[in-house]
């Protein structure tokens, strides 16, 4: 039974990681690509790590998994915000330039 739960966590995590990567490849511009990689990517790897924690079932392992997941969920929005700000400033400048010419 526990094996089935671990397997379902792994499959769901792999599915979300694959969806995130397809989103990064197929979506039309930087901001939408970032939306795919930030949300679906973090969810996928979090699910896989939770599967690992259930598989090993030790306290220290679980604490490390929770620390990794919290760190991922804290840093993904910060990184996405910084990339987004950089690309939006660039796009805004190019747009103004085209309009003024």
């Amino acid at each position, binding site marked *: *039974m*526990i*094996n*089935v739960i*671990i*397997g*379902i966590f*792994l*499959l769901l*995590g*792999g*599915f979300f*990681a*694959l969806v*995130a*990567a*397809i989103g*990064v*490849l197929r979506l039309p511009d*930087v901001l939408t*690509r*970032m939306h795919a*990689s*930030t949300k679906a*990517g*973090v969810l*996928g*790897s979090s699910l*896989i*790590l939770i*599967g*690992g924690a259930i*598989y*090993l079932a*030790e306290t220290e*392992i679980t604490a*490390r*998994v929770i*620390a*990794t997941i919290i*760190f*991922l969920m804290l*840093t*993904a929005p*910060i*990184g*996405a915000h*910084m*990339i987004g*700000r*950089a*690309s939006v*400033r*660039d796009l*805004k*400048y190019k747009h103004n330039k085209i309009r003024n010419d």
Partner: protein
Amino acid sequence: MTSAAFLDLAIYASFVMVMLSLAIAFIRLAKGPTLADRVVALDMMTVSIIAVCGVVLVGTGEPALLDVALVLALVGFLATVALARFAERRDARENGEHQ
């Protein structure tokens, strides 16, 4: 099908999916028209490698891979922030300072 066989199958299938996601993110890293696209693809690859660590952890039962995942999350965040700052300053320099 026994539950152990299902777990083996799930490990193989999720390994294939995560590796495919790594390859697809690499395509965006190679193609990406702007620097920001490439930074996003690199971030996606880091998260995929953390997922690979999780899958191999279940496959081999080696708990040291969890430390690899934690350190990779730290280093990946630093790389993303550094590249984003670089992109911002480079754009500001190229576009003139009147923003």
